[in-house]
């Protein structure tokens, strides 16, 4: 983004948009934190229940057209986080595209499979169960469990149990997506209110919002996002405690408004 408010938007409108972008980003991080922590607890429980070496959840990411491993648990699971696979390939892709739950074992006998798998998840398993995460619109990802310690293979019952966990994960994700959709609707509505009807203007709104949130990203060390994390966790606190913290934050915010930081990363720059 540039600092030229002349691109059809008044400085006030720009400031307002940036403010909205900040709030959307905060909401997104709050939501992301909560849905990821639910997913993490699901893979943790899966590893414990199956006595497995690893469990992970890959979600379909439309912009990149890949299945991205978002959370993982177990001693052998951590290497998978952040890796991604195309939905047209391999076991994870098959389960995602067909919605069919599968278990494979004796995987190491097929070296090519094992090597490909290791490239994808940073761990070569002996056995795998993969089940689809399905919401009301279709398959949104895949839950995988690797290597049950007490058994060489996964049974039909294991597939069904994993499917129950996958259902929980799908519910957690689709409810958080509803929140995100509400945020997008809000942004679009505000764009309209600002007289921002044309496609070019929409792109500009996106650009401004993106630039504002990118600036926030550089503020990681400021501790703001640590604060957001704590707020997300504080959802469980009792109403009296929340009221107290809200009052304290109001005092802090008033103080901050009177004495802006020299390097203002929040809101306008």
């Amino acid at each position, binding site marked *: 983004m540039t600092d030229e408010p002349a691109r059809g938007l008044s400085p006030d409108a720009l400031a307002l948009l940036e403010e909205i972008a900040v709030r959307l980003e905060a909401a997104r991080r709050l939501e992301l934190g909560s849905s990821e922590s639910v997913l993490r607890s699901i893979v943790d429980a899966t590893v414990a229940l199956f006595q497995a070496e690893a469990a992970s959840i890959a979600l379909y990411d439309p912009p990149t057209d890949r299945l991205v491993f978002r959370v993982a648990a177990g001693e052998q699971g951590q290497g998978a986080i952040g890796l991604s696979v195309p939905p047209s390939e391999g076991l994870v892709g098959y389960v995602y595209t067909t919605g069919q739950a599968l278990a494979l074992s004796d995987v190491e006998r097929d070296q*090519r499979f094992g090597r490909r798998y290791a490239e994808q998840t940073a761990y070569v398993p002996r056995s795998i169960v993969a089940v689809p995460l399905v919401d009301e619109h279709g398959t949104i990802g895949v839950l995988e469990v690797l290597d049950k310690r007490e058994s060489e293979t996964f049974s039909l019952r294991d597939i069904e149990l994993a499917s129950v966990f996958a259902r929980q994960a799908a519910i957690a994700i689709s409810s958080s997506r509803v929140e995100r959709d509400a945020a997008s609707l809000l942004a679009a509505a505000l764009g309209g209110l600002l007289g921002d009807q044309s496609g070019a203007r929409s792109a500009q709104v996106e650009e401004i919002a993106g630039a504002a949130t990118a600036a926030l990203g550089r503020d990681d060390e400021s501790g703001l996002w640590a604060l957001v994390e704590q707020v997300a966790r504080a959802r469980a606190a009792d109403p009296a405690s929340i009221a107290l913290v809200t009052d304290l934050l109001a005092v802090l915010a008033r103080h901050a408004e009177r004495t802006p930081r020299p390097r203002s990363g929040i809101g306008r720059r």
Partner: protein
Amino acid sequence: MTSDLPAWSEPFVGEGRSALARVVPFGAIDREWAIGGSDGSGILVAIIDSGVERDHPAVGGRLTRSVMVDISGEDPEVRDDPGGIDVVGHGTACAGIIHSLAPAAEFVSIRVLGPDNRGKGLAFAAGLDWAIEQGAGVANLSLSSRSEALFPTFHELADAAYFANVLLVSAANNVPGPSYPSLFASVISVAAHDLDDPMVWFYNPSPPVEFGARGVDVDVAWRGGGRIVATGNSFAAPHIAGIATLIRAKHPGVTPFEVKAILAATAQGARKA
């Protein structure tokens, strides 16, 4: 295993099997009459899946044609896939199971998964339509679509297959909600049982999942000429598809509903008149 039952396999495992003996007696129909001496010759089996590896030893050189569905244009287009590849291994696993039961049957592979269409319902429907046009005797479908929008399309295709004498064998989907065409009445929907015998199958008089077949720890063909041990309903379906192929080869005049009846009459625990 009997105390450890997934819901969709429950009727086919342990004590649950006692309820399956109610099948109507079919008189003289027994396995010797149904499939004795049959090797599946003369039957074309369509594998609608991830492709079939042409040179895999488990397929026995029986793959006669490979096509793929291209949905990049306005209408889906079925075109030749001369490479004869399998992008996952699953389609080769299904063909290998059917070949082990009906070694003289021929295969046509319809790849509806892959970088171009990756299991989109539309590609699947176009592939199924093509298989019906080719006059396949049996079509093995280990995938189904959840798209409500495609319900009428798949319903029409299931009827078209039935009227064209094409038997559709589909893996049951264990995820709740609609799943087409596996939930249609004319389709043979199959779930896995836990017995280690490809010639053991069960008939369940409570639809939609009417048949149970081997699907646990099956040693199957896989991509790259390899083999793997696999569990799931999608490995049970090709067992029933293989038996149905034997029936159709031996009794060329039978219709899909009669194949279903013969499968029920020759299932484990079926009462004899």
